[in-house]
């Protein structure tokens, strides 16, 4: 308890900002049906109605309430991005640590495979795979996670190689510890800092990739509300100085900044007073 209050007291202002924003997003995502005045795909008004008491942010091209879609969008967008990033990190860091720990042929094989995957342009590869396997949300999550995990692999391998050189790993090896213990108890806890810092940026890149895919017609499919495709759907309005498309984009930006603030703080905390 004392530890907790102490930790809370040390949280920097920017990290607080991040935590508050992320919490609000999570709450909104969780209580979307309660918060949103209308349904996610419900058609409730005319086309492109202006901001009003009835429709806080107006309506979209089908007459759906934009505010409600924004709220539901939190669910889909944040949910998918988090899930994808987590999957990428789970897979990438596990393989990275495994490569660093076992070394030898596995390391070589993984290293070369990742080289190959990274050398193929990500967007094109995603496009190819999504076209082959179909654009369901599950497929999208898995494919983006796979492509993203290559970057995580590199990072975690590099970090783990340093940890593996530590004496406590040698001590554990000399004890005859199994691979599972080495990875999950000894190595992973020591590479969380760089991983978390990377998480912030990767999280944001997942958004970008999803919305880039939606630009190419392969993103999250309508009528599901997600911020990336909401930006895409109304992006044309920007040319006329309309602010509507800015709102979902700002929602993404705010979340990105918030997540990175938390990541920065975490990194700062775990590396001492360096930053």
């Amino acid at each position, binding site marked *: 308890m004392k530890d907790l209050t102490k930790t809370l007291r040390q949280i920097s202002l920017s990290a607080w900002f991040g935590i508050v924003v992320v919490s609000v997003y999570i709450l909104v995502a969780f209580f979307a049906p309660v918060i949103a005045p209308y349904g996610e795909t419900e058609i409730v008004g005319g086309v492109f109605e202006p901001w009003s008491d009835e429709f806080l942010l107006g309506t979209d091209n089908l007459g759906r309430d934009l505010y409600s879609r924004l709220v539901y969008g939190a669910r889909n967008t944040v949910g998918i991005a988090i899930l994808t990033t987590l999957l990428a990190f789970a897979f990438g860091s596990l393989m990275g640590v495994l490569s660093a720990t076992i070394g030898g042929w596995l390391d070589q094989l993984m290293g070369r495979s990742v080289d190959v995957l990274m*050398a193929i342009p990500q967007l094109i590869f995603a496009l190819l795979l999504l076209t082959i396997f179909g654009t369901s949300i599950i497929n999208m999550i898995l494919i983006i996670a796979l492509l993203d995990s290559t970057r995580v692999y590199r990072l975690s391998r590099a970090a783990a190689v340093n940890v593996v050189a530590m004496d406590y790993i040698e001590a554990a090896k000399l004890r005859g510890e199994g691979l599972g213990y080495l990875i999950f108890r000894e190595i992973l806890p020591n590479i969380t800092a760089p991983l978390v810092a990377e998480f912030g940026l990767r999280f944001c890149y997942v958004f*970008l990739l999803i919305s880039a895919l939606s630009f190419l017609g392969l993103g999250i499919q309508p009528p599901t509300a997600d911020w990336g495709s909401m930006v895409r759907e109304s992006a044309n309005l920007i*040319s006329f100085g309309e602010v509507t498309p800015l709102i979902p984009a700002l929602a993404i930006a705010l979340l990105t900044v918030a997540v990175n603030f938390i990541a920065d703080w975490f990194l700062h905390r775990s590396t001492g007073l360096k930053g």
Partner: protein
Amino acid sequence: MHASISSLVLNRLLLGVVTLFVISIIIFCGVELLPGDLAQEILGQSATPESIAAFRQQLGLDRPATERYLEWLLGVVSGDFGASLANGREISELMGERLGNTLFLAGMSALISIPLALTLGVLAALYRNTAFDKGTSICTLTAISYPEFFVAYILIFLLAQTGFFPSISNISGDMSLMEKAYRTVLPALTMTMVVTAHMMRMTRAALINLLGSPYIEMARLKGVSPARVIVRHALPNALGIVINVIALNLAYLVVGVVIVEVVFVYPGLGQLLVDSVAKRDITVVQACSLIFAMTYVLLNLLADVLSTLSNPRLIHQR
């Protein structure tokens, strides 16, 4: 020292060739697995089974995939990438100018973004944890959290509709360099917005990470000014990391521009690749993918060589 560098280069080039070979197999299989083939895509619904068969026979698509791949591979090994299946033009002719354009855009973007990112990164490290640092951080993060096409639209709204720059960058061979550069400003700025944040943050992080080093404290105790500490003492040691990050982003500038090309109607390789995937024009897809992969491999190699050269410990043996 030179022996070690050249053996590194040779080693990596060999590996690169193997990588390219594997990629060509993956891409070939990928395109094969795509629903539909070139015949169907081109004929559309006007296709009858007979006409599709005739078409396939004409293009050799009726032969087994392995045979076609091997034939393609033999061609590539002897320096012949073949011709586009869709419109019969030679790959080299089809891609030559576009590759040049892609590199030109990448070059322009790099010219703006690299100095910008390095300067911002150094300044952010110098004034770490100040309002400047936080402000840059927020700005760059916001910039990268906007999808590329959106950044492009905003730039068009702000800079093209007000008449400063053209909204489309349809450069062509008969333009002067200045005109090309002028027309390429907006796409280059868009790419800059996309890549600067990563390079800047990594530069800042790499520098700050070094600030705890004893030699940095030593420099400060020698009476070296903070700016000189960062530039003269920290930066050379962060070069290895910075070079690698730059290489990664340069690679992105070359291979990741599909969307910017579409929005600004820029005649580069990305659009060609996407169109060819849509048409299942496998020879063009292969050639484009290999060029992109080669860019990635070469840039990484270059980064490794440069960061080796930047590190006296690696080139001056004991």
